């Protein structure tokens, strides 16, 4: 009797065997309903990953599958192989990978019924002329045969999207499908509208977690059955099955949101490259500030570098200058130079943006009389003052409390917010510029896609003079009247513990600076800093990404950090730190036996945020100069970790290629 191997969404690496009378080799890739657990009640949905004649299971333990769901085409072999790769590479159970890769409705064993109404097609816009660099990039991508990774390094405003659209047009003409991944924050109705308007006859599917279940189900089926021409989505779209996929585009490839921070901790950019290789098709990674990993590959010739060094519309790049705040008196954190520049811009009827990457009114509420501060009782972090709705909030676990009327320790009512967030900046600017229309843009003011869109519309209609915003504003938005960007409070990232912090800061500031002067008006960027001579700010002022990247790569080479080494973190969470550290110490001993010369294990240490949601957290870093050596080690180590029983209440996971240390 045929036996089917079924991948189930369970924290166990191996597939499960079931009897299936009617199973044929064509059933591999179908979803299947199987009994699970003691008794007859429990059932689970899995995916048939193989057919077998024999099984290691004793006959009395082998149970028949309930039903093979043949109501949609089987998930193709390439899709299953991609999932299997992720399972191996990220040390995650195959069933859990497949469950993540399926939309929720299909994962529940159902299919969407009524097809949601397609949005009205956007009016087709004029197709802009290509600049010579853009044309050369499009040609290079088009002439390639087979797998090739292109790194499209284009300064902000150089027209990268136009290059993507032309490359996609080439693929559609040849009857292929295209996949375009964008960071969460950049997937706006504008981008979707731009793509649909360019390809009015194409079936464009958008895929992200905010889409209703039925629509997501249809999107997946349209992709799987070949009806979709273009899939545009966030990181999870990398798993969309596309039988005629001929091109993958990853926009803003450096963006940290491509790396999932829970469950399957995959990098959608890296998985996209693997997928392109698997299918032998080209992939374009685009960015104004490529990740140092990608830049390093391009420098070494593994990726082909395509550069766009001229702005498509605006003539000049914004002038970037630092404001030395060491000996200056600041008013609510703003220097006179920046306040004057804001006043000038306002007088000219142009828009300004003050960038502060910290939302809320102030990062902490404190009692000056006794020293009490607003700590989160669940995390090793402070509660942030949100004066707009009179709440204290933990930005890590979401704990909320009303603002106390007086100090809980000494009774003093004159407790004070310390430090500065976007709300405080907004209220200062409102006092200082009563005639200006001020708009705050952060996760609090743009808490839903609808509110976010309304804010963007207000900006575009010229309904705001001064914007105060976090990194939400940094990406992919063109504001034609924006001519001044002020950067406040950026210095902290210069000296952060994470070696990637400068890379992130540089790309963030480059992006936010790139918002200014994108149309006919020249732009200006003022960065307030106590370190005006820091190489990072100098490189920014010189628009010198290459110089900055080479400098950073030199430092990383000297320190043996990625991309010159490959890393994995084992993280443990437990009720108390000692337990977490002890588990890691034991894991380390087990690992030392398996690690050869090429793999090094560091000491277990508490994480930077040492307590989250009442769990104490610690981590153990494993490093190797060789990716295959690290992978080989992880396979054995992960098996040994699964085999040992973790103490009750302790949870652990492996994070391969961690983005945050």
């Amino acid at each position, binding site marked *: 009797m045929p036996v089917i191997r079924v991948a189930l969404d369970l924290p166990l690496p191996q597939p499960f065997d079931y009897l299936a009378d009617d199973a044929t080799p064509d059933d591999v890739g179908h979803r299947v309903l199987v009994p699970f657990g003691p008794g007859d009640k429990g059932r689970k949905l899995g995916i048939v990953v193989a057919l077998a004649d024999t099984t290691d299971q004793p006959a009395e333990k082998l149970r028949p599958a309930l039903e093979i769901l043949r109501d949609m085409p089987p998930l193709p072999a390439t899709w299953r192989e991609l999932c299997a790769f992720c399972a191996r590479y990220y040390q995650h159970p195959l069933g859990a990978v497949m469950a993540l890769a399926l939309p929720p409705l299909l994962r529940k064993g159902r299919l969407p019924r009524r097809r949601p109404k397609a949005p009205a097609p956007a009016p087709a816009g004029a197709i802009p002329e290509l600049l010579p660099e853009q044309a050369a990039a499009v040609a290079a991508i088009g002439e390639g045969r087979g797998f090739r990774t292109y790194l499209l390094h284009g300064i902000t405003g150089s027209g990268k999207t136009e290059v993507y659209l032309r490359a996609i047009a080439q693929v559609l003409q040849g009857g292929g499908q295209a996949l375009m991944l964008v960071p969460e924050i950049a997937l706006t109705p504008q981008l979707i509208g731009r793509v649909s308007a360019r390809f009015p006859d194409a079936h464009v599917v958008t895929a992200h977690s905010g889409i209703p279940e039925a629509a997501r189900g249809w999107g997946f089926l349209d992709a799987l059955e070949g009806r979709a021409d273009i899939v545009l989505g966030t990181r999870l779209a990398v798993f969309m099955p596309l039988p005629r996929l001929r091109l993958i585009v990853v926009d803003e490839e450096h963006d940290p949101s491509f790396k999932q921070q829970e469950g399957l901790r995959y990098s959608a950019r890296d998985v996209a490259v693997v997928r392109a290789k698997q299918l032998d098709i080209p992939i374009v990674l685009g960015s104004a500030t490529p990740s140092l990993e990608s830049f390093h590959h391009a420098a070494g010739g593994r990726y082909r570098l395509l550069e766009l060094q001229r702005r498509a519309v605006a003539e000049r790049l914004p002038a970037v200058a630092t404001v030395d705040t060491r000996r200056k008196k600041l008013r609510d954190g703003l220097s006179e130079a920046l306040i004057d520049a804001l006043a000038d811009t306002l007088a000219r009827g142009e828009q300004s943006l003050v960038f502060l990457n910290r939302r809320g009114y102030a990062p902490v509420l404190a009692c000056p009389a*006794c020293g009490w501060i607003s700590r989160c009782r669940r995390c090793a972090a402070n509660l942030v003052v949100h004066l707009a709705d*009179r709440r204290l909030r933990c930005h890590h676990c979401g704990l909320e409390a009303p*603002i106390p009327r*007086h100090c809980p320790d000494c009774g003093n009512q*004159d407790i*004070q917010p310390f430090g500065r967030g976007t709300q405080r900046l907004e209220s200062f600017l409102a006092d200082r510029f009563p005639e200006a229309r001020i708009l705050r843009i952060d996760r609090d003011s743009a808490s839903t896609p609808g509110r976010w869109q309304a804010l963007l519309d207000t900006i575009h209609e010229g309904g705001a003079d001064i914007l105060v915003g976090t990194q939400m504003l940094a990406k992919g938005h063109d504001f034609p009247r924006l001519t001044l960007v002020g950067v406040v409070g950026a210095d902290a990232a210069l000296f952060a513990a994470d070696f990637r912090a400068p890379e992130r800061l540089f790309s963030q500031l480059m992006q936010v600076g790139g918002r200014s002067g994108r149309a006919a008006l020249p732009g200006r960027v003022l960065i307030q800093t106590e370190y005006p001579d820091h190489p990072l700010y100098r490189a920014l002022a010189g628009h010198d990404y290459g110089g900055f990247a080479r400098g950073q790569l030199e430092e990383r080479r000297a320190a043996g950090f990625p991309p010159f080494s490959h890393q994995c973190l084992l993280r443990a969470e437990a009720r108390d730190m000692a337990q977490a550290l002890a588990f890691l110490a034991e894991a380390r001993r087990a690992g030392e036996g398996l690690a050869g010369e090429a793999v090094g294990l560091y000491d277990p240490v508490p994480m930077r945020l040492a307590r989250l949601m009442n769990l104490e957290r610690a981590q153990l870093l494993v490093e190797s100069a060789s990716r295959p050596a690290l992978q080989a080690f992880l396979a054995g180590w992960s098996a040994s970790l699964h085999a040992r029983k973790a103490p009750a209440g302790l949870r652990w996971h492996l994070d391969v290629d961690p983005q945050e240390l």
Partner: protein
Amino acid sequence: MPGPARNSVAIAGVLLERGALRYTPGGQPVLEFLLAHRSARTEAGTQRRVECEMACLAMGPTALLLDGAAVGDAVEAKGFLAARSLKRRSPVLHVETIEFIEGAKNGIQT
């Protein structure tokens, strides 16, 4: 409140400086001001002139009352002393009651 817990100060003077009315995060109005005191006292049998400045803080209704006052106004303030902060231990008079002194100029009653 006699004994070791006693902390009570009464002082008259004119407003030398006054801050803008602000609010605690809990919504209480707060007004900080500097009081200039001038008087004549007898010290160890000798008449002398006395001058000093006192940092004051009023909260709640007292703060609202003081918000109507201008620099140069004469007042009598009663309250208790508390350190400015954990680090700066010099005292600030926390005003509990305030009385405006009619017809006063430069702290000298006419």
